[in-house]
């Protein structure tokens, strides 16, 4: 009688396959990790940029917006908003929220100081320089 494909063999394929592909993934991640600082100009992560990022995170901006396509799809992309709108528009826009236009999506009022707005814009500017393999397709995000 031929021995059939046993559960033990199936288990070995599962374990072997998992280890095999995890090893590949780790190797690729090491390479990716080395490349990311070049692709996103990590050397330009100034104190202002870091603080701007902290403001974006601690106010849950991606609860409505996307950053490089990740987040919620309720409000425009932020990864390239600097290119699309420029610094002055962004600051002004945040200051006048909410618009209160009936039916239109509302953005809460965030009580940012001028210094905080500058940091925020510094972060958005940094975001706009990341090499994202040419995404988004155009400035509209």
């Amino acid at each position, binding site marked *: *009688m*031929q*021995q*059939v*494909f046993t559960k033990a*063999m199936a288990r070995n*394929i599962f374990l072997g396959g998992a280890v*095999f592909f995890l090893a*590949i993934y780790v190797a690729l991640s090491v*390479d990716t990790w080395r490349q990311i600082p070049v692709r996103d100009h990590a050397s330009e992560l100034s104190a202002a940029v870091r603080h701007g990022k902290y403001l974006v995170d601690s106010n849950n901006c991606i609860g409505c917006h996307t950053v490089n396509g990740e987040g919620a799809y309720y409000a425009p992309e932020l990864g390239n908003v600097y290119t699309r709108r420029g610094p002055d528009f962004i600051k002004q826009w945040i200051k006048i929220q909410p618009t209160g236009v009936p039916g239109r999506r509302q953005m809460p009022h965030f009580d940012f100081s001028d210094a905080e707005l500058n940091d925020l814009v510094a972060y958005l500017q940094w975001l706009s320089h990341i090499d994202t393999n040419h995404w988004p397709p155009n400035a509209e995000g």
Partner: protein
Amino acid sequence: MRAQDREALPGDLAIWIFIFAELLVFGILFAVYAFARSAHVALFNQGQALLDRRLGLANTLVLITSSYAVARATEAIHRDRVQACGRWLLAALLLGSLFVGIKCHEFARDAQAGMNLSHDLFQMFYLSLTGFHFLHVVMGMAILAAVAAKTFAGGYRAHDCTGVETAGAWWHMVDLVWIILFILVYVLR
């Protein structure tokens, strides 16, 4: 071995599912390679010129020979010649290490030439295809070693040799993929 067994696929059906899945992945990779090549012919020709066909050919011969050894091992165990089966498996293992040695030498040369995954599309394909295949060889050798050890310990008999057949099927797949890879990446320009 009984006549009706001979007609069925050797090894077990489930291992063939995995071999099929593996071939599917490699098949998609090859298709994508061919697609990318047709879009960037000059770049690929230039990249392929950097490869040493002699090393690729040597490795092809090494793997084909080791496949032969595995086939002899399977045949031996069907005749209940346990020691012969074990020796053929060892021979296949030895040839596998030779492949690994040559390929490592080639990878070292590539690294010296400044190749990496992000330099250009050809190098990305060349390195991931051969790297992915290389890991399959290493995995196949681990399987062959385990099966050889069990063979010498008397773990297989003519009527109970799924392990040898399964390892053999896997090794033949690794060999087959290399032959296609060799032709596609090294030879066709």
